[in-house]
């Protein structure tokens, strides 16, 4: 753990402490040493279950227990049991198994926010109507009669309110696709602005009109119209702040997966870190190939061999000369004739050849199977014209002929746990229904696809934690790095600013900027 502690932004449990963030995060540093009761109490208050906090599960404890026990590392690391510092209570187990979407439930904080906004919105919407109706109700007899101009203003108020209603519905009443811990800064700002605005209008109205029982009805109606106009402008401000400002791309973020180095670049506008994290995650599911732990075993075994290669014995007595030991190890490793690169090369070449062979067999088998279907279809047409063959039956008929080749291929490319027989049969009947070619059918199996393509149980990546040094509501800036951790791997996100491009204008004679021969020149000889 580095001394400069990262701000672990786990979910709403800490957002209650947003005002005392520093204190909370310093507590967070000692979190793994503090008693479990703290987390137990948090579970009572915690409201966002969307992704539970990154409590290290049983498997991850090894990394934590190493601290402070370096000298006994070889002897005391045994099988991790539940009796380590991070014993997990019953409710945590229930919480951990919750998925991304199951958490759209009874979230007090979210509902609170929503109700406040809804009440405020309703109030704001009814205010102009109230302004117009109150004088009519309260002192109808004293009012000046409403002339044509005044009635025209009624129409304008009605339509502007309608436009405002539609605009608000379009902008704000959308299904939230994600829940984030800290509050949206701009939204809160806008709510406060609207509240102050309407409050001041009511104040003025109450003092100058209600108290004094103003008889100039046209003036009152105009006052209500001005309120509606101002609300429309606030709506415009909301659009600009919440939507438009983020559209123009300002940053290029690079997302790298920690386990296999797969990386992508995305363009983002002026977003807060938490919203940028959301965008990255949304794109992760459709852009990155699915995380396959089986593919990492080769590099892990190589790493294990390197580690096991050299053992250092301290002959000069008990002195914890760690740096001296590591230097000795590095020097010895450099001198050793290591042929692991050779092994790697031949292993990879061999693997590639095997994959290609199996792939060829698979493609041939599937093509034969599909032509068999065509023959079957033709026969069926002859026997019973007009009757379509059931795709499911057809799929089941040809599946055995290519099952073996497919299974062997999937085993070689280590994808076999992502496809069950049922899913293959379903996909096959789907392809037959839609008249796809064998290649289209195989597209799903030949190369690993994005995570969304597979069954939810195989995702390995449903619960995420955002770890960042800056506060998560602060905006993106050049050079920011934050990490999105899930249980098995993490996505390291690096933010870079798109360079400022300066295009300048220069007048060039049209004849000279094209590649034409030089004008006729004359030389005296």
């Amino acid at each position: 753990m580095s001394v400069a502690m990262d701000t672990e932004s786990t979910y709403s449990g800490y957002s209650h402490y947003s005002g005392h963030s520093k204190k909370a995060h310093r507590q967070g540093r000692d979190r793994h040493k503090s008693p479990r009761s703290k987390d137990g109490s948090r579970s009572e208050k915690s409201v966002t279950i969307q992704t539970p906090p990154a409590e290290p599960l049983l498997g991850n404890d090894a990394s934590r227990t190493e601290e402070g026990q370096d000298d006994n590392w070889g002897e005391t690391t045994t099988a991790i049991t539940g009796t380590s510092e991070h014993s997990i209570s019953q409710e945590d187990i229930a919480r951990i198994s919750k998925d991304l979407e199951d958490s759209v439930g009874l979230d007090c904080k979210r509902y609170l926010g929503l109700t406040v906004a809804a009440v405020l919105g309703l109030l704001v919407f009814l205010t102009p109507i109230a302004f117009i109706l109150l004088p009519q109700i309260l002192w109808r007899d004293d009012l000046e009669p409403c002339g044509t101009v005044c009635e025209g203003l009624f129409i304008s108020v009605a339509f502007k309110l309608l436009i405002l209603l539609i605009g608000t519905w379009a902008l704000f009443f959308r299904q939230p696709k994600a829940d984030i811990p800290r509050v949206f800064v701009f939204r809160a700002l806008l709510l406060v602005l609207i509240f102050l605005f309407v409050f001041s209008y009511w104040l003025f109205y109450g003092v100058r009109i209600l108290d004094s029982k103003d008889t100039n009805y046209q003036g009152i109606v105009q006052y209500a119209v001005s309120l509606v106009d101002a609300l429309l402008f606030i709506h415009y401000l909301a659009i600009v702040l919440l939507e438009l400002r983020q559209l123009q791309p300002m940053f290029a973020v690079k997302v790298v997966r920690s386990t296999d180095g797969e990386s992508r670049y995305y363009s983002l506008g002026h977003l807060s870190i938490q919203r940028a994290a959301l965008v990255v995650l949304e794109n992760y599911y459709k852009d990155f190939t699915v995380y396959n732990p089986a593919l990492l075993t080769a590099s892990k075994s190589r790493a294990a061999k390197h580690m096991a290669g050299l053992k250092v014995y301290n002959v000069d007595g008990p002195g914890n000369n760690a740096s001296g030991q590591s230097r000795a190890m590095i020097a010895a490793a450099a001198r050793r004739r290591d042929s692991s690169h050779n092994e790697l090369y031949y292993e990879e070449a061999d693997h590639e050849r095997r994959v290609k062979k199996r792939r060829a067999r698979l493609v041939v088998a599937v093509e034969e199977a599909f032509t068999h279907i065509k023959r079957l279809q033709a026969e069926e047409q002859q026997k019973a014209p007009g009757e379509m063959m059931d795709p499911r039956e057809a799929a089941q008929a040809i599946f055995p002929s290519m099952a073996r080749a497919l299974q062997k291929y999937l085993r070689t490319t280590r994808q076999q746990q992502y496809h069950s027989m049922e899913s293959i049969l379903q996909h096959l009947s789907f392809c037959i229904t839609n008249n796809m070619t064998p290649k289209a059918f195989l597209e799903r199996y030949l190369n690993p696809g994005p995570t969304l393509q597979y069954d939810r149980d195989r995702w390995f990546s449903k619960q995420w934690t955002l770890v960042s040094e800056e506060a998560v509501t602060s905006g993106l800036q050049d050079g920011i790095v934050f990490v999105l951790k899930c249980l098995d791997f993490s996505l390291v996100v690096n933010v870079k600013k798109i360079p400022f491009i300066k295009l300048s204008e220069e007048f060039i004679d049209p004849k000279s900027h094209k590649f034409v021969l030089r004008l006729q020149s004359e030389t005296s000889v």
Partner: protein
Amino acid sequence: SYFIFFSFQQRIEIHKLRQGDNLILGFSIGGGIDQDPTQNPFSEDKTDKGIYVTRVTEGGPAEVAGLQIGDKIMQVNGWDMTMVTHDQARKRLTKRNEEVVRLLVTRQSLQKAVQQSMMS
């Protein structure tokens, strides 16, 4: 009557004149494969990228030898001049160690129809 263009070749021998440190021939050339052939006022075919005589100084060695404005230089001392750049042409004409250059030029001539003269 009508006009006939025809061209004939002529061999011209020019003796260079020494002026100070230079040997001059007394004419100017234009054209070359790196030049714009459409600007050539003397060529009949506007895609012709050959070397043409654009000016002949009065009383100079070229005029004395019979070179005329508008001549197309085909060879200089045996070197082909139909597919050279402007600068290469200049170099071939201004070699320091040559006092005499023998040019093969093509000249276009305008003649009234021979028929008319025959009929009249």
